[in-house]
């Protein structure tokens, strides 16, 4: 039968050192992964072009160019109501973000 022999125990300081190194390595690995992920994200983001519609396929311009020719009040009123002027300067925010 084996008996407990205190002399066979590993040195206390060595065990502690091993234990304290483990979490440290884990933290370093996690930080490295976060940094690599962040750099990858920034790289992909910067390479993405900001979409600015070309004058040829601008839906806002197209919708403004479409209207009836009738002079009935209902028709005129419908076209006046369909005139969306709020998005005329759409795209300014994207440009401002680029200039930040």
């Amino acid at each position, binding site marked *: 039968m084996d008996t407990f022999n205190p002399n066979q125990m590993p040195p206390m300081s060595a065990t502690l050192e091993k234990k304290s190194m483990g979490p440290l390595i884990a933290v370093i690995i996690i930080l490295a992964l976060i940094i690599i992920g962040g750099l990858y994200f920034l790289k992909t983001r910067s390479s993405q072009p900001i979409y*600015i519609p*070309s004058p040829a396929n601008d839906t806002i311009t197209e919708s*403004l160019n479409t209207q009836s020719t009738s002079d009935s*009040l209902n028709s005129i009123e419908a076209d006046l109501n369909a005139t969306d002027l709020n998005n*005329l*300067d759409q795209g*300014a925010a994207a440009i401002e973000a680029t200039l930040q």
Partner: protein
Amino acid sequence: MKNKMLLLVLVSLLALPNLSFAETKKETIKDEIEAKRESIKNSVEERRQNAVDKIKERVDQFVQNVANRYEAAISRLEKLADRIDSRIAKMEADKIDVTKAKELMVKAKAKIEIAKTSINGITTTISTNATTTALMKEEFKIIKTQVEKAKEDIKTAHAVLVDVVKNLKPGQNKLETEN
């Protein structure tokens, strides 16, 4: 003593070419470092210029789009004004009082002209002096102010046209009831 002197001369003779070689090598390394530094500097400058050019291109494209939209908006308002004029003429022929509507139409047309002037005032491109993003940001601020002013003027003209139609409605209703 004589031996020592001889030894010294020998050592000097042997060390001299090495010293000269070390000097040449030092110069070469220095030149290489200088060349590398210059190359990095040029590369950084080139990248910066490319980034600035790209932003400038985007801004120019945006301003071009806005100018096209504003011109389309003005053209739309002018066509609507023509249609309203045609309706006013028909209602006048039917003995409907359109005095107020006519007054509003004069106002609407004046507002359209103001909007046109505002659109013409929009700077269409970023100047070549804007060589940094900071300078472009400043120029874009000015463009944005002009764009917003023109947009407000277009909206005002549109609102007056809406008022004209509202003003014409009772007369139109009366006409429809009579018929």
